[in-house]
């Protein structure tokens, strides 16, 4: 707590600011939905008041961040393998996009293969059977035993 003051890359400050923006949004939504009166509370009643509470809380977080130094944004990701995390997220988004288009099996088998090979590569002799076997097993259990329909995609496979 020796050095205090406003540092622009203070992660806590950023957190507080984002929360403040969210609370303003909630407040505005509550207002536009109509908060009604105390004896006939409307649809936005709860959101309006909650927005106020959140605004107060987020300002308190931001104030604390200014008073006592928080970690910088950069330091949070320093020395981590954030690239790998990004790969997983990107793969996952592509997967969700392909899920209904290609069907469960045609999208899940490549997903497994990518995940097994791209992060901490698993030997091919393990990766291939696993990425084929696991989705097929799941497919069989869901589709056959539990009768839960999985998407078949444009090729009607799965």
């Amino acid at each position: 707590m020796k050095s205090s003051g406003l540092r622009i890359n203070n992660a806590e400050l950023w957190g507080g600011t984002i929360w403040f923006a969210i609370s303003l949004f909630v407040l505005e939504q509550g207002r536009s939905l109509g908060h009604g009166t105390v004896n006939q509370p409307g649809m936005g009643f709860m959101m309006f008041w909650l927005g106020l509470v959140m605004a107060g809380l987020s300002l308190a977080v931001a104030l604390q961040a200014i008073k006592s130094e928080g970690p910088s944004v950069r330091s949070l990701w320093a020395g981590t393998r954030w690239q790998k995390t990004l790969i997983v997220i990107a793969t996952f988004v592509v997967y969700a996009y392909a899920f209904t288009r290609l069907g469960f099996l045609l999208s899940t088998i490549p997903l497994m293969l990518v995940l097994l090979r791209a992060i901490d590569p698993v030997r091919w002799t393990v990766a291939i059977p696993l990425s084929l076997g696991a989705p097929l097993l799941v497919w069989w259990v869901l589709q056959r035993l539990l009768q839960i329909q999985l998407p078949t995609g444009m090729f009607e496979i799965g």
Partner: protein
Amino acid sequence: MDLLGQVAHGFAVALTPVNLLYCFIGVFIGTLVGVLPGIGPISAMSLLLPVTLSGTPESGIIMMAGIYYGSMYGGSTTSILVNIPGEATSVVTCIDGHEMAKQGRAGPALGIAAFGSFIAGTLAVVGLMVIAPYLARFAVAFGPAEMFSLMILGLVIVTFLTQGSMLKSLLMASAGVVLGLIGLDSISAQPRLTFDRIELYDGIGLVPVVMGLFGVAEVLTNIEQGIKRTVSSTKITNLLPNKEDWKRSSGPIGRGTVLGFFLGIIPGGGAVIAAFASYALEKRISKTPEQFGKGAIEGVAGPEAANNAAAGGAFIPLLTLGIPPNVVMALLLGAFVIHNIQPGPLLMVQRPDLFWGVITSMYIGNVMLLVLNLPLIGMWVQLLRLPYNILFPMILLFTVVGVFASSNNVFDLYVMIAFGILGYLARKLGYEAAPLVLAFVLGAIMENKLRTALIISAGDLTTFFTKPISAVCLSVAAIMLLMPVIPALRRKREKVALEDGQN
């Protein structure tokens, strides 16, 4: 007929071979669906409802009840092993349970969860037999004002679940409430925060939120930090809780049982609150509160006991008043109805064989569950020996399947990914997910009750303070909010005293 006679009569019904078989099928399916995420007791019971028609009402209802409390056992497994809570009640188990697993103590965590559930489940059945008729009034004592105050208390308790700053947990809890309000308003049927996306009219599903915030976020964090810090490399010690574990867990199990049983009686949200109220209580009275969140076995034993006792308590409003306190009880009601039996105040008088048969079958079911679950622990722990680069794609596959199976909608897959990223960022900045999830579950109920309570009181806000139950809940909440301030003061005083002593 006195109580003992009735119990004996009940056992005579429950111990017939056919009922034993149904009971076993019930708890077996329950354990299975408890472990599988996205496929909760609700879908299993719905699917099996027609099967109950073939047998007597007793067997059918015994089986349905078995699925319910069986799934309560199974629900903790994925929470502990891979940080994926199967349902809202096991969110709390994740906090210390998964931490224990990371330290190589998955066995004791699973073990205490099973034993704690067994003890709580059995005691709750005793409670159900002895005091059920007297508690009917308690179930309806919670009107809108009381429910609202209880939910407020619940949300305040939620913030105790976390290690970090209370401000941050309160923010997460508020966000959870807002997320819970998405969808068609429960009073006027008009859309809120749906941004004209018809997928949002239903509201956001609990399963994708939980899978994202817990399962996916955990994977993302682990990948970023490299696999060294994960469970696979740590040595797995013993499989069952040792003497020390038992010593530390017995108190939490006892208190969790009482808390769970009573909160479970209250319709709507009681069971969820029970689990985390138990956690907060244990953390509060513990001599080593700093261990909570870092693998304290009390944090598994208490909530697990509470949620199983709550499952017992939940039978009270159904059996005594015909009012089902949650969706699962509603399905059970369906089973009664199909057999042309109306659960309610007259059930005990008109169909004592059924009433006592079902209750005593729960004793037997609990024993079966213990026998069934203990050998499984070894198998589950083996799973953790898999290297993380093989395990994590399996976990992700598991979440995808869970999300899709629960809603059959690819939109939920995107919701899960979004919440996975949010959860990952929140962890980075020191915001914890548990308050958000629990507030998400309670938010919509709370809002509805607030509005109803204000209509009843004609806008008089003092209604929340003049009704005794409501006043008690709010006072406890206020004390809890002020508590972080008080220890700070006390610590200062102690410090001063210490320095004085040294002089």
